[in-house]
């Protein structure tokens, strides 16, 4: 019985720590995704009419940017409601 209680306590503490860590990194994570999005837009923006480096540089970097492309596509989905995303992250109702 004490063993089970200890286990529950340990799991609860671990979960609470994880929740707090998640909250602590939430804003930074949002900033990181924005930076990754901007980085990808800067490199590949030329194909959509944005100022960007000469396309051969984009072609050289493209093979290593799969993750960034996935972020770009996900960001594009959220583009309809960026304020909503921000408010949600800050837990403002």
């Amino acid at each position, binding site marked *: 019985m004490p063993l089970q209680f200890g286990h529950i306590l340990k799991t609860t503490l671990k979960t609470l720590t994880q929740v707090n*860590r998640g909250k602590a990194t939430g804003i930074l994570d949002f900033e990181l995704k924005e930076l990754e999005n901007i980085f990808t837009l800067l490199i590949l923006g030329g194909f959509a009419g944005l100022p960007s480096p000469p396309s051969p540089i984009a072609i050289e970097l493209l093979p290593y940017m799969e993750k960034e492309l996935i972020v770009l596509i996900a960001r594009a989905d959220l583009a309809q409601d960026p304020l909503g995303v921000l408010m949600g992250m800050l837990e403002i109702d």
Partner: protein
Amino acid sequence: MRDSVFFLGKGGVGKTTLSSALALALARHGKRVLVASLDPAHNLGDSLKVKLDGEPKNVEKNLDALEVNLAWWVDKYLEESREQLKLNYSYNMTLNLDSFFGILKYSPGTEEYAVLWAIEDIHSRLAPSYDFVVFDTPPTALSLRFLSMPTISGLWVAELTKLRERILKDRQTIVRLDPDSPVAKGTVDKSDDKVYGKLGSIRTRLAALEVLFSKHSFMNIVVNPDQLSMYEALRIKDELERLGIPLSALCLNKHGVSEAAYELPAELHHLPKFTYSFSRDGIFTRDDLVSIGIEPLMNHILSERKTTR
């Protein structure tokens, strides 16, 4: 050491003739010379009376020549990127991007980059076997674009590198605060980040080309006795000054071809001037090329090279 020679100027002024003549003169002077045409509309082979391709072909003792195949360089480059992309990306993503590569060869800047890749290859792979590499360039517009490309792209790459550093720093902070974050599965260190590494290698290559153009090359402008080619020479001078590429000489070609008045712009007076008279009998053989009187320019280049060694 300055071992590359470029001839720049308006289309039809005689860049190929002077490139071939200088290469021949240097070779007959005992120097090992490679003359390379960067012009998509090649006529270096016609000038030297030899059929040329993308690899050096011996023309005569001490002299090799080649005509860069820009389309081949573009295809090679795109193919390498496509293969790398297939290797790194998941199947679904590749399927969507693969069709995209077909049109990339027509995107702006690709031709200029192909010229840069060719120059880089000649400089690193072939140049060590020669004393001089003489480049016959395309007309002004394309030449100025490829000469400015290392500087312009260098600025972009520097800014992208800064942004990448910030991304990696944020990732490191997140992983430090929360080691179980999904960010930890990706790359967080500069040494592991392939994008950062690639930006570094692009920057190194562009910097090497910038140094080649600004410090290891003789840039000669070719003009004809007409006002239009003079105006174009001025534009070349201004653009090269902006890029920090010094000019070496001014070659007035086809002197006496017409009686029309022209004026050498004052801004070009400070450059060493070499004049080549219009040959009414035509230039048919390699000996004809050497006989246009290229020796003064050759001596100028040889003496300048000695002083900057």
